[in-house]
C-alpha cells in the first residue's frame, strides 16, 4: 500500500487547501535571481536563475545539501546581501536592504546579551520610535505567545537553547513583519527540543498573520512544517523541484509514520543525494587484523 502511494497523490481536502492557497495574493516573488561571488579561484555561481512565488500565509521550506546556496538565498531575501541580478519583491515592493517587513531568525542565537528578554523583544519597535508604554505591553503579549512570559526579566545567558530561539522568534514577530525568514533556526537544538519547537512554530504560524520562509537540511522537519518544499541542487544552486506536501493539516508528530509523509520523504531522498559516494569504507580490504574475538556474528 505504501509503495503504491505517490507523493503527488493528494487527498481531496489537501487538494482543496492547495487550490485555496494558490488563489491568495503572492507575498514573495523571486524572478531570475543570480548570485555570483568573486573569489581567487574565479567566479563561483552560488544561485542560478531562481524563480519562485510564495503566497500569503504559506509555509515554505527550502531543502538542499550544504553548498546549494540556501543561506545565500535567505540573506538576499533579508537584504543582508545584494543579488548579482534578478529581483525580489515582498508585497510588491522591491527589496533593497534590510527592512522591518522581513523578520529574520538566525541559527546562532542572536539575542542581544545585554538586554533582558523583554527588552530584546522591544528592540525593533523601539528602533522604529514606538513609545515604550505600548511597546512594553505588546512585548509581554508576544512573550506570552511563545510561552516566555515568566522569563521577561531574564538575560539571554540564563535561558536554554530552545527558549532563546523562542525569544528570537518573539523579537522578530514584535516588528510585525509580512514574512518571517528562518535560517536553520532549530539546527543547534537537540531532537526533543527540536520537535517541540516545530510544534510551537506551527501554533504561532496559525495564530499570527505571517508567511514563513524556512531553511533546513532536515527532511522530517521540512515535510512536517511546510505547505511546499523548494529543493535546491548544489553548485550552482538552482531549483530542482518544488514539492507540494500531501500531508493534511493540522499536523502532529504522529503523522511521521503515515503513508503520505513517508512517500514524500522517500521522494525527497531520491532527489537529494550526497555526492561523495567514493568515501564509503571498504571493510573487506582492511590491511589490519580485526581486533575482535566475537567474530562476524554481531549482525
Amino acid at each position, binding site marked *: 500500500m505504501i509503495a503504491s502511494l505517490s507523493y503527488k497523490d493528494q487527498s481531496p481536502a489537501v487538494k482543496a487547501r492547495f487550490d485555496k492557497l494558490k488563489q491568495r495574493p503572492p507575498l514573495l516573488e523571486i524572478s531570475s535571481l543570480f548570485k555570483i561571488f568573486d573569489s581567487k579561484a574565479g567566479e563561483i555561481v552560488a544561485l542560478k536563475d531562481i524563480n519562485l512565488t510564495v503566497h500569503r500565509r504559506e509555509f515554505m521550506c527550502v531543502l538542499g545539501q550544504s553548498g546549494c546556496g540556501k543561506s545565500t538565498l535567505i540573506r538576499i531575501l533579508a537584504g543582508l546581501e545584494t543579488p548579482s541580478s534578478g529581483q525580489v519583491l515582498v508585497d510588491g515592493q522591491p527589496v533593497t536592504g534590510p527592512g*522591518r517587513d522581513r523578520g529574520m531568525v538566525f541559527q546562532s542565537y542572536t539575542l542581544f546579551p545585554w538586554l533582558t528578554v523583554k527588552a530584546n523583544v522591544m528592540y525593533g519597535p523601539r528602533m522604529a520610535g514606538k513609545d515604550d508604554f505600548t511597546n512594553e505591553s505588546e512585548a509581554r503579549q508576544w512573550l506570552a505567545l511563545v510561552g516566555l512570559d515568566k522569563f521577561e526579566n531574564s538575560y539571554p545567558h540564563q535561558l536554554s537553547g530552545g527558549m532563546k530561539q523562542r525569544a528570537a522568534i518573539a523579537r522578530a514577530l514584535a516588528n510585525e513583519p509580512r514574512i518571517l*525568514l528562518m535560517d536553520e533556526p532549530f539546527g543547534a537544538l537537540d531532537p526533543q527540543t527540536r520537535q517541540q519547537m516545530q510544534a510551537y512554530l506551527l501554533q504561532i504560524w496559525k495564530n499570527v498573520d505571517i508567511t514563513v520562509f524556512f531553511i533546513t537540511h532536515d527532511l522530517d522537519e521540512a515535510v512536517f512544517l511546510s505547505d511546499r518544499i523548494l529543493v535546491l541542487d548544489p553548485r550552482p544552486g538552482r531549483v530542482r523541484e518544488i514539492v507540494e506536501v500531501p500531508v493534511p493539516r493540522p499536523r502532529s508528530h504522529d503523522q511521521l509514520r503515515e503513508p503520505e509523509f513517508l512517500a514524500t520523504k522517500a521522494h525527497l531522498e531520491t532527489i537529494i543525494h550526497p555526492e561523495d559516494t567514493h568515501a564509503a569504507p571498504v571493510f573487506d580490504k582492511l590491511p589490519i587484523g580485526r581486533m575482535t574475538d566475537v567474530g562476524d556474528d554481531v549482525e
Partner: protein
Amino acid sequence: MKTQTRSRWWVVRKELDPSQSSILMALSFILPLVIWSVASYGPWWKVAHQVTVSAESPRLQSIYSVGDRLAPSVWKEFSTAIKEDNEEILAARKSGQPQASTARQNKKIVRQIHPIATVNGWLTREQELADDSIRKTWIDLAEGKLKATKEPLTVENLGVVKANAEMLTKAGTDWPTEALLKLLPQSSEEVSRPVYLVPPGVVAVSFWQGITATKPDAGEAGAERKTLLQRYAESWRTIVLGFLLAISVAIPLGLLCGTYDFASKLAEPFVNFFSYMPAPAFGVVLMAIFGLDLGPKIMLVFLGTLPSAILMISKTTRSLDGSLLEAAQTLGANQRQLLTTVVIPGVLPSLYKDLRLLFGTAWTWLVIAELLGFKSGLAEIIDTHGRRFQFDIVYPAILLIGLSGFFMDQILAYLARFFFPWMDQPKKGFLSRFFSGRARILGPAKQPVTSTPEAPTASPS
C-alpha cells in the same frame, strides 16, 4: 578496574578542584618567597668583618680602611699585627727607652678615631684632618665627657684612649715625641651578600617602616622631603591623570576605527607605526613642551598608553559578533542606531577588560615618566637610593608598584560582575574566590534592572 578517587594534578587541559587550585595559587606566591629566602639566608654567604676602626702597621702588606670587608683569616692577621705593634710600644716604654715618633706619625694614629667619632656624632664628616678637634675628642673621651651611642669602642680601645689621652695632655699644645698606642681594629660582622640581594626580612621591615613613617625621609640634598606614602600618592596622581587622558582619546577613536572601515584605514596604519616608537624617547620633547613639573610625566604615560589603547580597542570592537549587527539591521536599526544600541553596549565588557590590561601596562610607563624633569613619586626613591646602592629602600618602592597594579586589577576584575550582570562570568582570580563565599550569604544577584524605558511621550491631549 579501580575507580580513580584520588584527584590528579597533571591532566591535559583539565581544571583542578577548588582546593587544589587554592593550594597552587598560594604556592605561586610562596615559592618565589622561598627561593628569595634560600638565596639570601643560605649558608653560602660567608661572614665577613666590615672594618669600623682601622689602623696601619708596617707588619702588613696592605692598608685596610673603614668599610672594607675582610675574610676571617685576613681579619685575624690584621688584628694580631696591630696588637703586636702596641705590645712593642709598651715593652719599649717599660724598658725606659720609648719608641721615638714624629708628630706626623702620631697625628696619623690619632686620626683613626675619626670614622667612629662621626658615626657617634662627636665630629663631622669634614673634620677628617682637623687635628685639634680630633685631639680634643680623645681627651674628652678619656675623661668620660663623650659617650658612644651608636658604635661603642671596645674596652681595650677605651684603655688605649685613656693611655694616649694622658700623653696628649702631658704634651700640652705640642705633639708627643713618643709613639702613641694604636687603636685596635674593630669590625662589625656582616654576611657578605651581594649588595643587591637584600633578604626578605630586611625588605619587609623597611617596607613597614616606609608605609608607617610619618616624618619625611632624608631625600637627596635640596630635594623636597616627603614620606613614602606621599610619594606614592604622587605616583597615583601621575598615572591616573595620564591614563584617563589617554583613554578619553583612545575609546572614541578605537570605537570609530573598529566600527567604520573609513576611520580604521585613515588612522590605524599611522597609530600602528607610532606604537613602535618608544614613548620614553619623546621624554626630552615632552619636557621642552610641558616644562619640568607634572606635565611631561602625565604626557609620557599618555603617550605610552595611547597607541596600544587605540589598536586594542579597535580590535575589540571589530571582534563584536557580526550576527548581532545583522540581527539589529533586520529589526530595522539604522546606521546610527547600530552604533549606539549594538556596538557600544555590546563591546563594553571587552572594553572594560582592555582598560584593565592597559592600566596594568601604564604602570611601566610611570617609572620612566617620573624621572622626567623634577623627579617625583616612587621613581624618585628608586632612582636616588638605587644610585647609592641602598637596595633595602629601593625594593619596597618597587614592591609597592607591583602590589598596586596587581590589586587594582583584581579589584576591577571582581567589580566587573556588578557592572555587567548580563555576562556569564566564570569565577576566576583571587578576589572573586575570596568573596564568593560572602556573595552567597548576601543572597542571589538582584533582579537585573531592565533598561529603563524613557518616559512615554506625552499624548497630545
